[in-house]
């Protein structure tokens, strides 16, 4: 009979009218963010050896790493991500052999000014002369890091292992080839 579908539709909307509402009122309540969420990056400076694997794994050349030779060791002075170009694909995190780079669950990366957009994970001066202990340098790095990210680190260990097993094909393109 003509009109059956019309009445069925009214029944459904009437039922929905009384059904539970699903709105999450954002600033007051938050939708749960899963563990694997691709949010703001966190760099564990102590673990990082500035090998540039992540920078090479990135499809969009988001990561800029600056190194300086201090004594025999390479000392990382800058680790800056041009986050406005980031695809959040996770290839850099997967490529990290030392498990130093992570995603956090923080998705709020808005900035008022364009110049503030790049995510500065490390920016520090290289120590003037080689030091035997890493301690002062690492400490300085920690300070800077805390300055760059006001939010405390959510968690450092990666949830799932297989990707970190570095079986991954990601990255490690030869350095010479037009990077």
């Amino acid at each position, binding site marked *: 009979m003509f009109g059956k579908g*019309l009445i069925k*539709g*009214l029944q*459904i*909307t*009437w039922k*929905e*009218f*009384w*059904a*539970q*509402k*699903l*709105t999450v*009122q954002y600033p007051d309540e938050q939708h749960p963010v899963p563990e694997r969420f691709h949010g703001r990056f966190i760099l564990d400076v102590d673990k990082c050896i500035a090998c540039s694997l992540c920078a090479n794994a990135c499809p969009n050349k988001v990561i800029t790493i600056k190194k300086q030779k201090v004594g025999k060791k390479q000392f990382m002075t800058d680790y800056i991500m041009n986050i406005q170009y980031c695809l959040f694909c996770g290839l850099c995190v997967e490529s990290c052999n030392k498990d130093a780079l992570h995603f956090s669950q923080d998705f709020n990366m808005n900035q008022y000014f364009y110049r503030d957009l790049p995510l500065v994970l490390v920016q520090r001066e290289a120590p003037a002369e080689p030091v035997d202990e890493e301690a002062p340098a690492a400490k300085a790095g920690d300070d800077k890091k805390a300055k760059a990210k006001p939010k405390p680190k959510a968690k450092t260990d990666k949830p799932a292992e297989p990707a970190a097993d570095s079986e991954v094909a990601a990255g490690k393109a030869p350095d010479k080839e037009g990077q």
Partner: protein
Amino acid sequence: MLENLFVGIADWLRSLLGGLGTPGEINEAIVMLAKLVAILVFILVNALWLVYMERKVAAYMQARIGPNRVGPKGLLQTTADIGKLISKEIVIPKKADVVVFLLAPVLIFVPTLMVFAVIPFGKNMAAIDMNIGVFYLLAIASLSTLFFWMGGWASNSKYSLIGSMRVVAQMVSYELPLVLGLLGVVMIVGSLKMSDIIAAQEHTWFIFTQPIAFLIYFIAAVAETNRTPFDLVEGESEIIAGPYTEYGGMAFAMFFLAEYANIMVICAMATIMFLGGWHAPFGLDFIPSWVWFFLKMYILIFIVMQFRWTYPRIRVDQLMGFGWKVLVPLALANIFITGIGMKIYQAIGW
């Protein structure tokens, strides 16, 4: 006490003015003016409230909660929106016909406001109880077509043009079943006066004696106000916003509020003609008559809103076909049957 609240206020005003010693005619004019202003304020506030209601109804049917930030439960949301829209610039397209373009949103409210003068909101609560009330209402209400057309034509945009052509086609062709649907009721009552029509429904509402007429009227009325499933005029997925495409700011808001005022008109009309106006059902007289009137009206408005949030839009040729091939013949048949029925009743001698 509550029953005669508004009538009492009018009487009080009249006696107050009587005490001042001014001539009686002037007093009557002042009372009339006060009534009209009251209705005007009522309509505008109601239009705001209806926008809020529509948003809430829509949200609740879509598993959302709707506006709830501005004011208690979001009640001031529309007020805030209007405040924002007033502050916005009205952009006038370069090649628009400026005078007509600006005149259309100003005039769009006029027919709606004029119509409300004859609507009885409760017992003895019509501003003017005209003896051609129904006729006046239909004649004035159909004027709004003109202003939609003005807005669409003056915008000088193709989408607006298509939209306003649709307005004219749709409103003209649905005016006919609308009037023919009401004719059945008018035939039974034998009067065009609203109070007579309501008085005739004291025992039986006309929705029971004229169900087909009600159906025809309601469908045609939904089409008259350009509501889904007949909202081809706006048809946002086809022609952006039809005649209002080029309007912004308060000019747009006027069209928008007029739509809700129009819904109020058609639902009030349906209440008067078919649902017994302000008569209380089941002898529940202790609730004031005007509360009943508004209750019935808002139930109808809710149904119109539920239509909008349930049904998709029909196509322009289907719209015309439905109007001329289904509704008009059905309405004519209804008039014919009503006429025969009346004759039979008279013959039996009821």
